[in-house]
């Protein structure tokens, strides 16, 4: 199955109560691609990524990771995935180092490998000085970074990162981009969701635009954006721009 796509979503649906969050998403993420997932707030990005990583059961549809059905054999497939979910806590009464160790051990790594990789990751993400602090005392950006380290520690074949750059300082963000880029060059696959079009356009080679639970466009970044910038194309696709003239009273002069 070496030429199977890294991730293939077929007809994913998910309903919460009577709200349909994801309405039939099909997506093919080629192996070795750096894939961006963009969409307005509430588009269903997090729901889609949760279903693609085994965190949320789809109502309908199939998730194939390197050709294997995730929901049919979760334990076998989850080892191939590195996950950074958004909006969830970590086991934050552990120290940063303990947390990365825990993530590594849960993936079945042995003690020496985990120890060596934890040290490398802490250094690469500029967390060495805080390695022995409890994660509960970390700032938002540091928490994001340690969560990323947990996703990377077992060298997964597919990385799924939900909003990895949120609250991360520019220097760390650049470091993370380098790490991810070299990981893709060595044959790994990365999926990131983001609001920052500029970032996706510079960093990713593929992109999918999602809104209201549907895929509006998908393909290489150049295919999707055509002649315009990704941001303009995104606004064209999603719509919903309101004229800036609207809030006439929002002027510092009118008290």
């Amino acid at each position, binding site marked *: 199955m070496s030429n199977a796509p890294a991730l293939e979503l077929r007809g994913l649906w998910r309903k919460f109560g009577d709200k349909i969050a994801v309405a039939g998403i099909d997506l093919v993420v080629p192996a070795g691609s750096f894939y961006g997932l963009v969409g307005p707030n509430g588009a269903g990005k997090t729901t889609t990524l949760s279903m693609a990583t*085994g965190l949320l059961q789809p109502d309908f549809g199939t998730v194939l990771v390197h050709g294997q059905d995730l929901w049919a054999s979760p334990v076998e497939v989850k080892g191939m995935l590195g996950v950074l979910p958004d909006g969830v806590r970590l086991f934050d*009464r552990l120290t940063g180092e303990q947390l990365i160790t825990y993530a590594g051990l849960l993936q079945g790594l042995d003690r020496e490998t985990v120890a060596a990789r934890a040290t490398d990751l802490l250094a690469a993400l500029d967390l060495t000085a805080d390695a022995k602090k409890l994660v*509960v005392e970390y700032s938002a950006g540091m928490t994001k970074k340690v969560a990323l380290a947990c996703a990377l520690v077992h060298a997964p074949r597919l990385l799924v990162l939900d909003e990895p750059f949120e609250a991360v300082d520019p220097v760390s963000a650049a470091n993370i981009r380098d790490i991810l880029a070299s990981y893709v060059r060595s044959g790994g696959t990365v999926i990131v969701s983001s609001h920052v079009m500029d970032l996706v356009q510079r960093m990713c080679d593929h992109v999918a635009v999602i809104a209201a639970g549907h895929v509006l466009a998908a393909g290489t970044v150049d295919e999707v954006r055509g002649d315009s910038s990704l941001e303009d194309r995104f606004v064209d696709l999603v719509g919903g721009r309101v004229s800036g003239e609207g809030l006439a009273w929002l002027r510092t002069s009118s008290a």
Partner: protein
Amino acid sequence: MVAHLVRLKLTLLRNGLRRSAWQVVGLVVAVVYGLGALAVVVASMAVLSVQEPDIRGLVVVLVGSVLVLGWWLVPLLAFGLDSTLDPARFVTFAIPQRSLLTGLALAGLIGIPGVVSAGSALALAGVWWRTPAALVAAVVCSVIGLATCVIGARATTSAASALVASRRFREVMAGVAVLPFIVVGPILGRLSESSAFSEATVERIAEVLSWTPLGAAWAVPGDVADGQWATAAARFGIAVATLAVVVVVWDRAFAHALVNPAHEKVSTRGHGLGWFDRLPATLLGAVTARCLTYWARDPRYALAVAIVPVLAIVFYAVRPGGDLVLLIGPIAGYLMGWGISADVAYDGTAFWTHVAAPLRGSADRLGRVIAAGAIAVPAVLVLTVGSALLAGQPGVIPALLGLSLGVLLTALGGSSVLSALVVYPVQLPGENPFQTRQGASMATVVSQFAGWLAVMALSLPEIVLGVVAVRGGSEALGWVTLAVGLVLGSVLLALGVRIGGRTLDRTGPDLLRKIVAFA
């Protein structure tokens, strides 16, 4: 503005009810309970008002003092203050502090405890209907008393939360604060047994209370009825001063909280990898190490452990040298075994780490059981043997051990299944201890009760054997109990881990979805 805040509170209440059927059930139960309590108060006040000899003053002071004390202390110790209108949420709004305070105080009356207390305060005033002058004074004083209740509750909690900003302090205090509450019952019990608790004592207590901030407001009408104008004025002064003090305390604490939102102070640094270094580097070892770390670092677990020695002391205090202390082993076994029944809920959304990992449910279950067992087994052994020696009956040790360990193992098995089936909102680690989580009540109560019944039923063999062995003083039967308790308990635990593991493989993502929805 005040009306806005009251309306906001009502809207929050209504929206809360829309979220789940359990909330409605909980509210109905609370309404029935509250109305019942109110009816009892009103009826007894009606009877009291025509009672001869006249003990109106005495009873009103006692009831009123209990009311005030309840409002001041209960939020600190048990239920927490309703956090829907947390001052911190108004930080960014430019609301004058005076109207914010008035609004929050009035909003504090909305809800079952508020309505019941307001009704009771009115009933306490109505007692004086035969004495018009006293009745007028009573209405005024009831309003003052009620305000002292509501604002006092805000004052004690906000003053206390300012005190306990550091995590370590809070964790220790949470345990210590429960102590007096547990001990007070037995002490009262012993007092009433000895004849010290006579009519004269009650009168003296009421007399003392009526000069304290707790009872002063409620004592004024009695003085007016008796024509003791000087005393009435003095007590009225105390009541007003009390109200003024709690208002100032709340006002200060509030102003402080608005500009210094609560945050945790940096305190602990871990050393090395702790349990992760000491346990095998396997999936199971990792889960166990994580749980053990949490048993030490997470106050919610620490509390479950801390309660056990407290119980031992209480049982001993009630009847030194009696048989009651023998119960401590089995009860500790149950409490500590059942301690992991909300384990997944305690993980909170961090549970995703387990769902995302290639981890089988059985390893998750077993790791949690081993961690809990590593703490519970030695504790139960020590308590059981200690209690038998304390009661002067070393002969019952085998029977008692069989009973305690059997219950512990069964409870661990039951918890393993339950926590794979049900999650309910729990206090988050590091959350303000004086906040309550909404929607916990009924689901918690029902699942806890069902689990309690199941554990009791499943450990019935060793319970019956143990009781017979201890009563009859048969040592042979004691050893049989030990064997039955250990074997049956182990089988049930193995079954519990197996069933719980299978269940978790199936329900894991769904449990996670529910936890995310709570947050």
